[in-house]
């Protein structure tokens, strides 16, 4: 089966339709982010900083990649994102094969990504999430195949593009450390020393230095080109961001109410705590299966984040196909969880629409829907964790 043939059934017509809708209708198909990227790319072609474009909060690398939008055609970026989508599908397939899944089963699981309307819709609307999906999956493939150098390069690049892959550092480190034979020696100090020493090995050192090297070189290069603005917009803004405008995260309500209070900065930092604790626990429990661990990490990160928009879902959805073969959930249960997930979003979108486009004061309902969505996400994650089977040969999908 040729990978390139599958998405072409949906993606290219969708891009063409999107172009038509943009030109003729008031409600645009293309996401505002795509225009932000294109405007930033235009500034680069004029020899200026991409940060002249207000709300451009990404790495300059993205704007550089999209300069053909100006030189060739506006649709170049969307084509690039779709190609990355297809590439992600291919990477998922290869990882599943490496993990021991049969060709047919791997293809079936892969189609969950390739034929999924969500990534297709996101990429054809012009969001750049698929680039990061491809990078993260590339890192995981290299780790699975033990090509540590390439894995480190891709990992460094991923972290440069978006901050969230930095959370994978802990499970990667835990998976690369020297696994020692169980010792009866339970003396606190000695086992702690042994634990720390297990991190000091050649592989981990190679990975850490190459990844850090790539990240530092890119940061230094863009800092030299664009200065403090690059650091602030690409990284610091996201770390200190306290978005008071409504989004899926229930934190928005608290941040809106306390925006002018002296405590707002501390509250913003405190909101990192639940994420941090859960990430540490997940890393320790599941680092032996890197794909599963990374999926959990990303899902926890997105669900408990101070800001949550639907684009973020793609960050963990691209890793879900790697996890599915290891789950002992039945098809009925899986579909049930999926419906629950969509229902949670629907319950939020209702009041959000009435607030933004009809002018009703539905702030409280939006907050409650956000809380419910968080509960639903937590429930789904608990179901996934409790039905996870870390076997060598993953089970095929159970069909009732």
């Amino acid at each position: 089966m040729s990978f390139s043939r599958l998405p072409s059934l949906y993606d290219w017509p969708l891009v063409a339709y999107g172009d038509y809708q943009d030109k003729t209708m008031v409600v645009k198909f293309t996401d505002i982010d795509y225009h932000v990227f294109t405007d930033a790319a235009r500034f680069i072609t004029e020899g200026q900083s991409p940060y002249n474009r207000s709300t451009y909060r990404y790495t300059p690398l993205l704007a550089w990649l999209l300069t053909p939008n100006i030189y060739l055609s506006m649709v170049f970026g969307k084509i690039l994102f779709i190609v990355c989508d297809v590439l992600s599908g291919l990477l998922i397939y290869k990882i599943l094969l490496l993990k021991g899944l049969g060709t047919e089963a791997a293809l079936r699981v892969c189609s969950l990504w390739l034929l999924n309307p969500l990534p297709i819709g996101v990429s054809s609307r012009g969001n750049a999430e698929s680039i990061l999906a491809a990078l993260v999956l590339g890192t995981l493939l290299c780790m699975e195949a033990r090509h540590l150098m390439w894995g480190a390069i891709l990992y460094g690049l991923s972290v440069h593009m978006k901050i969230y892959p930095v959370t994978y550092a802990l499970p990667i480190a835990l998976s690369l450390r020297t696994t020692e034979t169980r010792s009866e020696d339970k003396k606190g100090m000695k086992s702690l020393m042994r634990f720390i020493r297990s991190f000091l090995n050649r592989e981990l050192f190679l990975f850490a230095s190459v990844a850090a090297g790539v990240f530092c070189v890119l940061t230094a290069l863009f800092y030299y080109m664009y200065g403090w603005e690059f650091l602030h917009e690409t990284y610091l803004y996201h770390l200190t961001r306290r978005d008071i405008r409504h989004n899926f995260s229930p934190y928005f309500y608290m941040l809106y109410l306390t925006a002018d209070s002296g405590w707002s900065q501390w509250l913003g930092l405190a909101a990192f705590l639940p994420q941090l604790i859960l990430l540490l626990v997940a890393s320790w429990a599941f680092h032996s299966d890197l794909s599963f661990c990374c999926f959990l990490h990303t899902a926890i990160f997105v669900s408990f984040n101070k800001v949550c928009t639907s684009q973020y879902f793609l960050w963990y959805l691209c890793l879900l196909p790697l996890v599915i073969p290891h789950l002992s959930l039945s098809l009925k249960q899986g579909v049930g969880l999926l419906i629950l997930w969509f229902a949670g979003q629907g319950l939020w979108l209702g009041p959000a629409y009435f607030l933004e486009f009809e002018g009703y004061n539905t702030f409280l309902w939006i907050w409650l829907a956000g809380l419910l969505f968080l509960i639903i996400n937590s429930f789904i994650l608990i179901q996934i964790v409790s039905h996870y089977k870390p076997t060598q040969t993953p089970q095929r999908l159970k069909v009732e």
Partner: protein
Amino acid sequence: MYFVLVSVLACLASCHCFIERDEKKENHCGLLQHWIESTLVSMQIIKKGFHREVETTVELSPDVHSGVRVLLLHRWPRGVYVDPYQLASLSDLNDWKILLDSTIDLEGPAHKTTGFVTFVYPTPDGPTPTLLKVTIPIHGRYHEPSFVAETFTSVEIEPPELLLWTEKCIPLNNVEPHDVMEAPCTHHNSSSCQWVKQQHQKKERGPVNVQFPVVKLYSSYSGVDYRVPLDASSQFTVIFSPYFCSA
């Protein structure tokens, strides 16, 4: 003798020319004064929620000459903003052009931003029709949490000021009681012109109040408050007081 006669004739001719030019100019300035007094400006705000449209209609006097330029000056409060990128994409579809006086903060809350001014040129090129319509998309900002019972905050939007310019009345004088104002000649903002500003604006409506939802803070325990008021713009609110104390 002939030389004296010719020079006197030449002088008389040029004096006549100057007088004629002055008279013509006074005529045009008088006409300008008449046009600005007879022009009607009306504004209405359509759509609901945080994304509205401000529709301004200008009815010029039918005897307005071509070559008269119109400028609509909006002074916007800080509770709303325009998206310059949206305006740039719209300018390809519209025949009106807009100029902003400052960079717009697209994300800041109302109490942390300032108002701004826009210069709208309804017909930058070509002849001036007698009926002009300009629709500007605006967006509401998030406002400070409210400490009182109101869950909506009101933003007052003034109708625009009308300014006229014609090249046949330069420099501008004798246009009392109307003021003369310096403003960019075109949306390119490459030069400044003197415009006549309509003094006693013949408005069909006064300032328009736009309501935006805002979160409510409570300083004390309060019971369930179920109100269904109906205001002039036919919005209704259901206010449900939560049982919690404010930060």
